[in-house]
């Protein structure tokens, strides 16, 4: 079984500190009590790449995101951003270093307006303290005005839809629009690396296609690097520079979409044993045909 598997593990990582590496995970492990959620995971994300993390439910994908963003501390291993360790830093510090994220089950501030949500995203970029906020010296007024302009600019990334609804409570927005606001909020902190946790979850086909488009635009127009978790394989395959596959907390493959797609271990892990058997059968049939 292991003989026919494409061995991709360790291939990009072995090139130590690649010049354009933005994020690097070095044998990151996280255990909760006796449960190992993430085990010895290596991952390399280069500047302006779109990288996907896929894997079955409970494979540890979201845990990896939580480790990168500082919600969890790794039990062992290193996480480097631009070559500097971000392990043991608080989530808000990591935001200032240039990593922001969205959530699988959208976590916007529902009793705030669209605009306010994006303004919270700018929190680290603004300076006004309590006294400044109350007494409003000219620089605070100017800062607040600029923050609003910037928030509108970010919302306009998604066309006029969100601009028109800027003063509406986000709880009144459609699911797809909320996902957009969440991305705008994440962009507001001026990240270098954007983590998207299932950016198309719960979307219909048209909305998914649209999401794929704007994720590409995030990279192409804004120069962002994107790491995303995705369940829809077609989505991932279509836009990723490379794909890392997790299963039971371990990375079982990492490579170009086409390489990962036909990886037997990936097929087995991701689609289940039955799918693997089907694939084997197909291979056998193909081989039989070739022989004919």
């Amino acid at each position: 079984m292991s003989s026919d598997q494409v061995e991709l593990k360790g291939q990009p990582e072995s090139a130590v500190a690649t010049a354009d590496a933005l994020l690097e995970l070095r044998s990151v492990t996280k255990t909760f009590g006796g449960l190992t959620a993430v085990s010895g995971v290596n991952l390399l994300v280069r500047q302006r790449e779109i990288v996907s993390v896929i894997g079955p439910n409970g494979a540890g994908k979201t845990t990896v995101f939580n480790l990168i963003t500082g919600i969890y501390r790794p039990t062992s291993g290193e996480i480097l951003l631009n070559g500097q360790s971000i392990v043991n830093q608080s989530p808000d510090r990591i935001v200032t270093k240039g990593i922001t994220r969205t959530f699988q089950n959208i976590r916007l501030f529902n009793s705030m307006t669209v605009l306010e949500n994006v303004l919270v995203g700018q929190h680290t970029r603004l300076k006004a303290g309590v006294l400044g906020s109350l007494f409003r010296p000219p620089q605070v007024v100017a800062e607040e005005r600029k923050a609003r302009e910037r928030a509108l600019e970010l919302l306009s990334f998604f066309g006029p839809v969100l601009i028109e609804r800027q003063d509406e409570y986000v709880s009144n927005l459609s699911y797809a629009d909320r996902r957009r606001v969440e991305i705008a909020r994440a962009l507001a902190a001026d990240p270098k690396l954007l983590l998207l946790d299932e950016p198309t979850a719960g979307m219909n086909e048209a909305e998914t296609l649209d999401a794929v488009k704007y994720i590409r635009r995030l990279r192409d127009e804004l120069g962002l690097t994107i790491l995303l978790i995705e369940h829809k394989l077609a989505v991932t395959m279509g836009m990723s520079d490379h794909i890392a596959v997790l299963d039971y907390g371990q990375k079982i493959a990492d490579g170009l979409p086409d390489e990962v797609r036909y990886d037997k271990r990936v097929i087995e892990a991701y689609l289940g044993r039955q799918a693997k058997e089907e694939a084997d059968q197909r291979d056998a049939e193909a081989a039989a045909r070739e022989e004919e």
Partner: protein
Amino acid sequence: MATFVNLLIVGLATGAIYALIALGYTMVYGIIELINFAHGDIFMLGTFVTIAILSALGVQYSHPPTAMSWELVGQLALACVGSFLFCAILGVVIERVAYRPLRSAPRLAPLISAIGVSLVLQDVGKLWFGPTNVSIVPMPIGAISAGPINIDIINIFVLIVALALMAGLHFLVNFTRMGRAMRAVAQDRDAAALMGVNVNLIIALTFFIGAGLAGAGGFIYTLKFPNTYFYLGFQQGLIAFTAAVLGGIGNLAGAMVGGLLIGLIYSFVTLIPNNILPHGGNAWNQAVIFAILILILIFRPSGLFGQHTPEKV
């Protein structure tokens, strides 16, 4: 008519003090879902600090000021700011020492911790000013008379100061960077942290403002009432807490309206004559207030302004 106007003004002024205290309960509950039982005692220490500051400035019970002067206004302003800052810093220290280490503990733990802090603060008060009533320096503030209506100016003053503080708070919370961060932390602490908000700082800030408002409330209380004592915080704190629950705990506007309503009820209950309630309404106002608390909890547990329980992470 005259009685009505008087009761209205007195009720609003008393209610404004309750509202200031209630805001602290509701802010702390909103942000960390803790009923800060020590909050009333912070208010009590606010009255003590006010007396101490005024006394240090020479405004003492033994020779009270006889007329209003700019000097006295300055001394009062100093006492107000001093009480605000003292209580605000005390609130931050309490949060740091007694609540933050328990933030991820089961909910009962910080609650017990809060009761403990409350007892400690009462004992501090007892040590400081003794176990008996402490007389407050009477202020030479007159009254306005219009025919049969006779209003103590102090009530107007209390209302103005309290409303100004509440307006400031409303502005801070709804229209500024810090206020947005506070609301964000209250709604989803983790998501706020992941948007770059320093959660510990924002929680400390919430305690600073909430406790500071109790301090300012303590200052106002000393202008309006003749005495205070170490147990004042427990008594008034419970009433203010009722106001917060009436308005919908966690909701700022609710605490303000709830405070004013409780003040009005407190005031108008005195109209009930002897033949309905023995000894007259005056003897019953606390009973009425707590009966209201029970009714709210039964029929509208989320309060006047409260929504259904906010979803929590």
